[in-house]
């Protein structure tokens, strides 16, 4: 049965159609995937189901959710549509612990019974949701900032799984998840759908689409250019856009770059220990990054990858050990580092949206790097920034808007440019491809390679996407529980994983793609 029916949806803002004439239905128990290039209007379409629109935008067309007409003046009843935002960190209240909020949500769905019974039911419901969303129970006492990016995302998922919405809209729900968890989440989404919930999945991950979706909608520049059953659309794409997306998918079987011989170490980390409050989350890590190489950092969600990266960037003071940049030891604190040192190691944040100042145009912010760290003049810096952004497909017009008016993928690219403008010797990229469609992702990786060739910059790529790892990195380190458990040349490690964790990750990824991807011949 159709739960959501959208007809001729058009959203215009600033004389430009963000979405134009989209029509589709969501059926009870069906999983529909909405795919398309970054900035094609996916999030905007999804949010219009909730009766939300960009400020100043005009919405036309009709939306019906569970028989009720929805428009910005009449949003659907709270709880009808579950929504998992693309950037989950902002959805978590910074001053509330995880557990109480989950219980609060659960209480909405537990009626009947005595107080004791209710309490027990609430507890069960919370535990159930935690299990489904793969959130360990010990995180209940934590504040959101005490979670890793992937954990935050799963907590938000748990919020939605507690309730019983008619429709679940999930905007990139697996971007921050490792292969193992992703596999488990696929099962959960299936069971959600099996409960009769209509699922709208917004994603770039075509493997995920193949694994889950019954139906696929492809968007391009605000228009739905192709729709149909999953196998049909992805198996025999008709629209060039769709074809491009499929073609650009990285090859998981790639065997790493033809790596140059390792240069001198730019950064060497020795015996690094770091942690939060009393617990250590990074233990005795020793690793070197060589000039011009690409080092992939892979590990389960919550294994300490971001913490390690932040230590390098000077954002998280380590407890002991040493980080050397060239021959000089680096002070642990950013404010003790010279601008020169700051410029030489740059970090691209996992959550791009949160890393922008919401009050200033993105372009201005991006350009500041060139001004501050490379001594460029104001106009020169802007020119450079605009150029780099354009290379990645973000127009100057978009970039001149405030962060809130850019799509997730656009911001991710802007964040990369912001760091790259410092012309760093080491560029740490924390999940920078996660929010990007395959085409843009490929472009971005090409641009990075160019940068590497031009400047001899070393890349540290933190990612869950083993395909990216396989195709683009020279060496890989596998992190687990804050320790490096395996390291080596990418091709070798992926081909013959030594550590159980690596094995798990690789098998999960392979199983995932093998089961879904019809290998192009």
């Amino acid at each position, binding site marked *: 049965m159709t739960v959501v029916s959208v007809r001729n949806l058009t959203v215009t803002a600033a004389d430009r159609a963000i979405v134009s004439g989209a029509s589709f239905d969501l059926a009870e128990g069906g999983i529909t995937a909405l795919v398309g290039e970054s900035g094609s209007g996916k999030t905007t379409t999804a949010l219009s189901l909730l009766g939300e629109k960009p400020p100043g935008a005009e919405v036309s067309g009709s939306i019906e959710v569970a028989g009720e007409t929805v428009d910005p003046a009449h949003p659907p009843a709270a709880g009808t549509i579950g929504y998992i*935002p*693309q*950037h989950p960190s902002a959805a978590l209240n910074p001053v509330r612990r995880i557990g109480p909020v989950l219980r609060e949500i659960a209480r909405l769905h537990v009626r009947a019974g005595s107080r004791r019974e209710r309490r027990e039911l609430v507890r069960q419901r919370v535990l159930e949701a935690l299990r489904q969303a793969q959130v360990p129970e010990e995180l209940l006492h934590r504040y959101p900032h005490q979670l890793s990016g992937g954990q935050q995302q799963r907590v938000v998922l748990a919020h939605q799984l507690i309730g019983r919405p008619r429709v679940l809209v999930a905007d990139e729900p697996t971007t921050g998840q490792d292969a193992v968890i992703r596999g488990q989440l696929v099962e959960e989404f299936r069971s959600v759908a099996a409960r009769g919930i209509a699922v709208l999945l917004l994603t770039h991950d075509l493997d995920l689409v193949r694994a889950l979706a019954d139906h696929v909608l492809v968007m391009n520049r605000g228009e739905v250019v192709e729709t149909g059953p999953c196998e049909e659309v992805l198996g025999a794409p008709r629209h060039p856009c769709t074809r491009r997306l499929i073609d650009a998918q990285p090859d998981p079987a790639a065997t790493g770059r033809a790596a140059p011989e390792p240069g001198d170490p730019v950064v060497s980390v020795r015996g690094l220990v770091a942690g939060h409050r009393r617990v250590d989350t990074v233990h005795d890590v020793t690793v070197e990054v060589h000039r011009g190489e690409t080092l992939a950092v892979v590990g389960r969600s919550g294994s300490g990858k971001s913490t390690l990266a932040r230590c390098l*960037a000077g954002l998280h003071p380590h407890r002991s050990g040493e980080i050397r940049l060239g021959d000089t030891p680096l002070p642990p604190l950013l404010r003790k580092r010279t601008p020169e040192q700051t410029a030489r190691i740059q970090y691209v944040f996992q959550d791009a949206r949160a890393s922008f100042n919401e009050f200033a145009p993105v372009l201005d912010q991006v350009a*500041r790097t060139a001004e501050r760290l490379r001594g460029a003049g104001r106009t020169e810096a802007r020119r450079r920034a605009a150029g780099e952004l354009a290379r990645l497909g973000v127009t100057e017009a978009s970039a001149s808007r405030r962060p809130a008016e850019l799509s997730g993928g656009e911001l991710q690219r802007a964040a990369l440019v912001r760091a790259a403008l410092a012309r760093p010797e080491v560029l740490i990229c924390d999940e920078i491809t996660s929010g990007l469609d395959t085409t843009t992702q490929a472009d971005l990786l090409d641009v990075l390679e160019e940068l590497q060739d031009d400047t001899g910059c070393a890349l540290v790529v933190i990612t869950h996407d083993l395909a990216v790892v396989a195709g683009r990195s020279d060496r890989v380190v596998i992190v687990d529980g804050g320790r490096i458990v395996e390291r080596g040349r990418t091709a070798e490690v992926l081909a013959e994983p030594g550590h159980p964790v690596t094995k798990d990750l690789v098998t999960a990824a392979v199983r995932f793609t093998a089961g879904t991807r019809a290998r192009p011949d």
Partner: protein
Amino acid sequence: MRRYAVPATLVAVPLLLAVLGPLLASHDTTKDVAFLLGGGHWFGTDFVGRDVWNEVLLGGRSLVLTAVTATACSYALAVPLGLVAGMTGSRALDEAIMRPLDLLLAVPSMLMLLLLASIAPGVPWVLIGVVTLINLPDVVRISRAAALSLSSRPAVEAMRLQGESRIRIGVHYAARAMRRTLAADLGTRFTGAIYLVASASFLGVGVSPQTSDWAAMVDRNRVGLFIQPWAVVLPALLVVALSIGVNLAFDRWLRDHDPRSTFLEAR
């Protein structure tokens, strides 16, 4: 501009009176019976028989000027301090800023006023200094509290990685994120400063007793509230109008210049 009509009127009337008043006022010093209602005076006479309207004309300029300067001074000093204390990663720096200010808070402000009154009577700068000093720790604390939750945001970390100076982060990000809080506080603090100026002039700091002053008028004429209400009500109304107007204008302006939108952040 129509949306600003109400706040603009509320601010303009007292402000114009304050600025132009002294030009229109008569400097005739003869006195009538104190607290006369009518008797050839538009708004009666005050506690020593001076014409209330004339006093109102005379009494705005210095008051508004000192209150504005004092509030501006306290903000100019306090907000940067609060930002630094709230956003610094160094606990030592935070404490080094906050604990001495706590000392200032712990000294009864009346004692401070009294002392300054006796040390340097009649100097407007002293008055501005006192009012600034009294407000300083409060504003520092409020802005520190507001800044504290900003300090750990990735946006701030990203700016630091760009090599941005503390000042720039403060001005371009933190101050903007806090602007609503600061405006709310500034609005009420300005009003507070008006009365602080008055009570200080009552103690003899700053404004000399010969000078007319709205807030001091309210204070000195209060005994006559029931036989000659104008002497209190008129200046009080002007202060009220000024204060409500300033605050409403802030509110309006913040609403019109709101770069935020939930929709897009919650995506």
